[in-house]
């Protein structure tokens, strides 16, 4: 009998393990963050209390958190649906920009007298279409040439970013306010603005929640979802069973891009009221990948995780009173991502202590 902990793969862990491991990962990330805060010369206790206060304590902080969680739910879903099929769409960032550009463009182009419901429907649809098309640029080569989509979606992020910058900072485009002294976008009309629930919280949240529900149901309850999950687990077997893998790559990436595009449209319509490249390029797409990973690609899980990360982002600026730079927020996100990734090992494998290992007859 050796005194080594042995590792054994397991199929599907029990519910307590499935919930416990991510929670333990989050706790570990919080501890690691505390160490960094200590090294930076501040009190972790103070910092975390400030963050809690700034993000969850009271109606105003809570609405701020939910405003930030709204796009993160959508980008989290965008990553979750693609990753579930092992299609690595790292391009939610750029798809979100293109959605924002399209939504702002239509909001400015349509007559101001357009009825609000129609206007909102059109700009959200425009965001979805633009995001889907932008993702399609990577989806087509992936589907037909098996081109590495990690690289293509990522390159398209930068292209979209510079294109958006060009529209506002690099030219006097249709999007830019010609009167303003400093480069900035034109304000969209009242009809194009999402109505407010409370404080700055807008009805985009409901759109995001609805998307999460629909996606959750589609993945579990439809043939489309079944095929998507099957292809994710085994593309070769799925092809043998007669599923169209390339068709599915196109539809999944388009859907993923559409979700990110809607996030961009909602940011313009509900929060910024204009195409503001600096305010929109805040890594919402990348944070969505973290959200999806923590939620273990479950669309319903994406919602609470997005709220949690929204709270982390919302509390960033408040940390300056605790003597910390707002950049710590990115670090915390990274730590969460890292520990959650490590946690996957404990979900996929069972650790056997020496005694149990001997009992089951392992070497």
């Amino acid at each position, binding site marked *: 009998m050796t005194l080594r902990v042995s590792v054994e793969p397991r199929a599907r862990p029990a519910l307590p393990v499935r919930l416990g491991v991510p929670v333990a990962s989050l706790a570990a990330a919080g501890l690691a963050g505390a160490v*960094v805060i200590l090294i930076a010369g501040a009190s972790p206790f103070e910092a975390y209390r400030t963050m809690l206060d700034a993000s969850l304590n009271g109606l105003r902080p809570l609405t701020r958190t939910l405003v930030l969680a709204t796009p993160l739910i959508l980008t989290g879903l965008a990553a979750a649906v693609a990753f579930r099929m092992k299609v690595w769409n790292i391009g939610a960032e750029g798809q979100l920009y293109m959605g924002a550009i399209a939504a702002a463009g239509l909001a400015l182009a349509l007559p101001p007298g357009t009825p609000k419901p129609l206007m909102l429907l059109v700009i959200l649809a425009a965001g979805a279409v633009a995001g889907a098309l932008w993702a399609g640029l990577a989806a087509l*080569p992936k589907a037909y040439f098996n081109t590495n989509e990690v*690289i*293509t979606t990522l*390159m398209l992020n930068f292209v979209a970013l510079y294109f958006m910058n060009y529209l506002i900072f690099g030219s006097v485009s249709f999007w830019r306010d010609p009167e303003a002294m400093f480069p900035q976008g034109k304000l969209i009309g009242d009809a194009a603005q999402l109505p407010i629930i409370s404080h700055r919280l807008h009805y985009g949240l409901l759109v995001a929640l609805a998307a999460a529900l629909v996606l959750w149901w589609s993945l579990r309850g439809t043939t489309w979802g079944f095929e998507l999950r099957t292809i994710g687990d085994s593309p070769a077997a799925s092809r043998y069973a007669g599923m169209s893998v390339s068709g599915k790559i196109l539809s999944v990436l388009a859907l993923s891009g559409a979700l990110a595009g809607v996030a961009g449209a909602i940011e313009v319509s509900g929060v910024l009221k204009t195409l503001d490249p600096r305010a929109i390029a805040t890594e919402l797409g990348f944070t969505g990948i973290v959200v999806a990973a923590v939620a273990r690609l479950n669309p319903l899980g994406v919602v609470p995780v997005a709220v949690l990360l929204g709270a982390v982002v919302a509390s960033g600026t408040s940390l300056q009173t605790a003597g910390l730079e707002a950049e710590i927020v990115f670090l915390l996100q*990274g730590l969460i991502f*890292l520990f959650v990734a490590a946690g996957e090992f404990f979900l996929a494998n069972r650790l056997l202590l020496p005694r149990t290992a001997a009992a089951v007859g392992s070497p």
Partner: protein
Amino acid sequence: MNDTVLVLSIVSAIVAGTPILFATLGEVLTERSGVMNLGVEGMMLIGGVTGFWAGVQTGNLWLALLAGGLAGAVLSGIHALLAISLRVNQIVSGLALVIVGGGLSAFWGSSGDSPLIQSFNGVRVDPLLPEALRDLPAVGPILFGHDPVVYLSWLIVAAAAYFLYRTNAGLSLRAVGEDPAAADAAGLSVAGIRYLFTLVGGFGAGVGGAYLALAVLGTWQTGMTAGAGWIAVALVILAGWRPWLALAASYVFGALRTLGFTLQIAGVEVPSDFLNMIPFVVTFLVVIVVSANPERARRVGAPASLGEPYAREAR
């Protein structure tokens, strides 16, 4: 002669391509072992901030590059642990590295009493060779006008190519990347070799980031790599996992990244946003073209086990 557009643009392409070269070459070696580390952007950033800090502290270029390389290697060690030992999905782990590296470098590089804020780096990056050589027409600036790090990078590329194709150790590395089970059966330590070359790749990316901060930009800025790490990941594919092609590809992309400068001295006006876009558009297109031709895609083929964790008992 030596201040013509062509000569100046080739020189600036080499300067701008050198950080990408270190990162690309490191990733070539990592991927040759079968490990894909997408975290190059994060490792370059952490290498950049550490190297710049070390440069400010010591004023010594070599110590600064070493510090940057070590910082990149430490970060890549996390990827090694996750990807090799814990067999976590390598794409997820690599992305986590990008976010951690970006966050940590931004946090360290901007915290209140950080010595990095508005500091000049005290490191001198001088040309290596005597002026007489550097003043030769055309070949002077292009071949003889560089700082020692550029020449070192050429030596390292040559050494890496020799190592990969002409030594037993290089054969072992390639064997682990192509067929880890066979390599394991032949008595090689698959995990050991993968750990080592993941760290080597991280060291390369860290050195690249440090060189970028110290010699190319001359300062530290949050997010200073602006996608250079991702370009490096793509160049590994374009270079077909070969060291000399990595050098050529890095300089081509150095040229694309400095195209604005080149066009400016040539008197052509193009909006800067479109200039910034070009390396990414070109990468996007070239990756597609490479994959679109199945004959070619097979010839330049990736290491067969790239991205797949290896576990002996899983056979």
